[in-house]
């Protein structure tokens, strides 16, 4: 277990240095999701549920093949279905597996105040540690992808772990393994990037998708989950995939300038007041206050 400290490069709400930062050779893992070969079979959904022993949750029919409107605390992996008509009138049925993107610069981790509740391993996995989660939900606000979900009973937040238990034992994540068509692929970020670009090129050159491309948004430092899209210029078509996701500005301001300003103000205020006391002292000396009072006596 002690080895694991060396595998952590970022810790939420943590004062001081991070034990594993820059101490390990880095092997960044990455999921490649090729939406152009996804058939929306939901094998990944079930594999996720089954492997992580996630309990049953009620669902209702919602005029769609989609299991539920969005991921839940006990449903970390959801395929989003969207019907889209192209300009030539042909129909596309876009399916996108939605789960934690494992951002290189995770908004959840930035927003989290609890020491060690969210960590990022050197392999890029962003992992929630529920025993340290205090249930504030700031991660929900910090995430530009609407991923962390709150459990009202335990008052803690849950999301895809990228199967850290499997990956740490040398296995691929459960969703990746299950994927029947191979639209999910797992490996190093560099390799996945290469495969994704190759596929996008094939789609552009050979399959009549001139705008095909790879989704690896730089706004969050790139992600540990990248997509191949038929039309990379319109990621919104795929169930509202943000075109340029970033950590929300207010979270950045809050965790950045405001924090420094506030700290300076608070410390400065304390020092100022103390200095004032030294310089001017109380408004009234003790002896002054003890002088016999004049004036009305009832």
């Amino acid at each position, binding site marked *: 277990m002690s080895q*694991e400290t060396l595998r952590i490069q970022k810790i939420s709400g*943590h004062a001081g240095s991070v034990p594993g930062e820059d101490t390990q050779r880095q092997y960044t893992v990455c999921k490649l999701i090729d939406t152009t070969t996804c058939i929306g079979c*939901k*094998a990944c*959904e079930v594999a996720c549920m*089954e492997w992580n022993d996630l309990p049953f949750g009620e669902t209702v029919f919602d005029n769609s093949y989609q299991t539920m409107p969005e991921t839940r605390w006990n449903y970390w992996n959801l395929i989003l279905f969207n019907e889209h008509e192209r300009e030539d009138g042909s129909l596309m049925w876009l399916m996108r597996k939605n789960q934690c993107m494992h951002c290189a610069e995770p908004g959840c981790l930035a927003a989290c105040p609890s020491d060690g509740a969210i960590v990022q391993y050197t392999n890029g996995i962003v992992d929630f540690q529920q*025993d340290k989660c205090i249930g504030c939900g700031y991660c929900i606000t910090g995430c530009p992808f609407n991923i962390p979900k709150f459990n009202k009973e335990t008052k803690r937040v849950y999301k895809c772990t990228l199967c*850290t238990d499997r990956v740490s034992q040398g296995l691929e994540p459960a969703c990746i*393994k299950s994927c*029947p068509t191979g639209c999910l692929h797992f490996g190093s970020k560099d390799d996945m990037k290469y495969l994704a670009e190759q596929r996008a090129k094939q789609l552009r050159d050979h399959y009549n998708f001139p705008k095909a491309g790879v989704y690896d948004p730089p706004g969050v430092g790139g992600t540990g989950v990248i997509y191949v899209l038929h039309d990379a210029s319109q990621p919104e078509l795929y169930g509202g995939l943000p075109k340029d996701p970033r950590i929300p500005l207010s979270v950045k301001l809050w965790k950045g300038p405001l924090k420094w300003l506030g700290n300076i103000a608070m410390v400065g205020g304390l020092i100022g007041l103390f200095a004032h006391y030294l310089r001017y002292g109380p408004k009234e000396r003790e002896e002054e206050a003890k002088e016999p009072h004049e004036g009305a006596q009832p």
Partner: protein
Amino acid sequence: MASSRRDFLKIGAVGGTAAAVFGFDLKPAFAQLRELKIERANETRSTCPYCAVGCGTIIYTIGDRAKNVTAQVVHVEGDPDHPTNRGTLCPKGSSLQQEIMNDRRLLKPLVRRPGGTEWEDISWDDAISEIARRVKKTRDETFVEKDAAGHTVNRLESIAWIGGCTDTNEFNYLVVKAMHALGVVHLENQARV
């Protein structure tokens, strides 16, 4: 007073808190990696019972097959060596663990008597013996040895067998063998529909 283990843990917790007061949280502030749930589970190679792709599966059961253990399936995943599915499974295959460990499973023989409105319990011996008697009675009453034209037909038209989609080859063979011996001709299978 002997300090129980529980007390010891409490003391530990208090100590931890006390230390934290001074800014030293003794609990390491790093991730507790979840353990692999199949780490010591037993692997059995099987085939998915659903569609005809015939995906290889690995069934993980707890217990090391020691005599004193009743195996429980904790996980099922694809067999990566299998040339067809190469470890993948569809949403049905991925939920096989629940197909096996399912509290809706039928666990005892039941009978519904003529005019009955509820199931009744029946022992295996009684069930098998009753079924065998009924088959014999029906066979003896309706067996056709010769047709109208006088050809030997030796067939039994009054009993039907319908076989399921997940019967093994061997089971199918046994059934066909036994049914042909009885003379059954209404012999059908999911394969037809």
